[in-house]
């Protein structure tokens, strides 16, 4: 299917690059204004697993929202999956999220009245895929995160760890170019948290590109690459074990 009008908005990225942000600032027009991002540049390649750490208020969530097209930068550009955010309309950003970006949140954000299966199937809702096909893929995704036996449980009946697995399955079910997770283990005890980190590593090993925001430096230490934010600026961007990028 071709959509010529949108083709023009495509911005070239080097092969293998999923995300590229350049000199991004984000200023919240409060009184006084908050410079949540003060000029951030970074690239994420296909297959990477990146941790973003930093103290509370350092701009981590703001960065994730800007990377995920949920918010526009005040200045600078975000190019994701070959599209420049500045060149896209709100509707086009929505379609980008529907097809190319997956999200995982600290609060899970499951629909309580729905079963685990339908929560995951909703990950494909706005792609226009029919319910039967969505459920088929959702069942596979749920099996992948170890919840094959919980598919018909309503969301309220799941434990915290199970909820986050459902949310991860929902983020991955559309095979997005990138998955953005904001403190996915923030509401979980350390044991459950470990198993979620393990799952994320497995999914990355299978090819998924994932950016994880975390408070937990121990969690970050597991991942191949860690970006540290402070006061809206990148303090360090390092590959663990090997040298600086």
């Amino acid at each position, binding site marked *: 299917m071709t959509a010529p009008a949108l083709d023009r908005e*495509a911005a070239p990225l080097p092969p*293998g690059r999923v995300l590229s942000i350049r000199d991004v600032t984000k200023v919240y027009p409060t009184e006084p204004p908050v410079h949540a991002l003060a000029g951030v540049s970074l690239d994420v390649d296909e297959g990477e697993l990146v941790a973003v750490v930093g103290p509370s208020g350092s701009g981590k969530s703001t960065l994730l929202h800007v990377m995920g097209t949920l918010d526009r930068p005040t200045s600078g550009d975000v190019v994701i999956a*070959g599209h420049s955010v500045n060149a896209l309309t709100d509707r086009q950003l*929505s379609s980008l999220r529907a*097809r190319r970006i997956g999200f995982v949140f600290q609060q899970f954000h499951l629909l309580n009245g729905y079963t685990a299966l339908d929560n995951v199937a909703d990950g494909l809702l706005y792609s226009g895929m029919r319910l039967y096909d969505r459920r088929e893929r959702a069942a596979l995704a749920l099996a992948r995160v170890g919840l094959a036996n919980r598919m018909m449980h309503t969301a309220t009946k799941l434990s915290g760890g199970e909820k986050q697995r459902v949310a991860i399955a929902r983020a991955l079910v559309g095979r997005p170019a990138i998955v953005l997770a904001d403190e996915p283990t923030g509401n979980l005890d350390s044991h459950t948290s470990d198993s979620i980190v393990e799952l994320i590593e497995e999914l990355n090993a299978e090819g998924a590109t994932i950016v994880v925001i975390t408070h937990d430096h121990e969690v970050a230490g597991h991942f191949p690459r860690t970006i540290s934010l402070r006061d809206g600026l990148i303090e360090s961007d390092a590959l663990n074990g090997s040298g600086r990028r």
Partner: protein
Amino acid sequence: MAASTLTPSRLHPSDLGRTASVGLRTRKTRAALSALGIMIGIAAMVAVLGLSESSKWDLLAKLDRLGTNLLTVQAGQGIGAGSGQLPEEAAGMVARIAPVEATSSISAVDANVYKTDFIPSGQTGGISVQAVDVNLLETLGGELTAGTFLNEATAAYPTVVLGSVAAARLGIADVAHQPLVWLGDQWFAVVGVLEEFDLSPNLDRAALVGVASAETFLDHEAIPSSIYVRTNPQFVDDVMDVLPATANPQNPEEIEVSRPSDALEAREAASDAFTTLFLGLGAVALLVGGVGIANVMVISVLERRAEIGLRRALGATRRHVAAQFLGEALLLALVGGVGGVLLGVGVTAIYASTQGWAILVPTLAWAGGLAAAIVIGAVAGLYPAMRASRLSPTEALRTT
């Protein structure tokens, strides 16, 4: 990764229905309560229109059966009017008007009627005694509930036929053994009881005796006080015009001519006024119901900010979010509308069947009720839907 094309976000219509009904399915009590206002309003309007239609149909059937070609000629009671009696020859003259098909006279008899001969004559029981022609029943299109009407043979004997109210007051329902009543100074045998007259209710409170027996036993001089006239239906107005001069050539102004079916129609017109009033009340209930839905939807949008944020993150456009909440308001109103139509039809059916009416609900009532519900749902849902869609994704997600 090479530049890829972007296919727009899409929400299949069947999925729009599913997402629009999430709120209803997960908050059933609230949904039911907020649909209740619309339901009551629509039910009121459907029932009022249904009942008005059913009763109108009943009236038309009644008029059809009784005919609108019955006229009454009476001696007027105004200034300069005579004794309340018509000229002796009036009945004969009226019968000679060409389009007149039948005439039947009655005259008031100065007598009282009692169940026994013990009751003091001061107590009349409100029952009048009328001397009538034997063709009265036929001319009026009346019916008997028991026994027979007067005929040429019985009219000469002390026999009486009771109007429905008179029979009830005298406690007579069964005439198989011809019960006796004390009428004037004489026992009269009751041979028949009449059904209610729709066109001349005054006969319901009367005891009817034959002209011959009135003259023989009650010392009555049968000069008619009223004449019932059946005319050819095509010439009713013409006959009405000539009746006064025909009945009383000397003093036509003393004659009152009326058409009893007009009174029935007037009664119906009065009930139309009530219909309008109740329709107005139904409309107010609908309005209140609409405000209720808008209110519930605004609260729902506030409560479901996180869900809105999630849907935006999953790729919903503003329009998808607006459509979901608008759809939810429409569904709520539609549930109320369908419930209201069913309730309204039910009320109509129950009431109409107790009245022995045909059950009629005009298409305008139920289709209009559903249409009103849809319009109200759309209007009530518009503002909440706009609010939901204007919420920025990050703002919506920030709520925990």
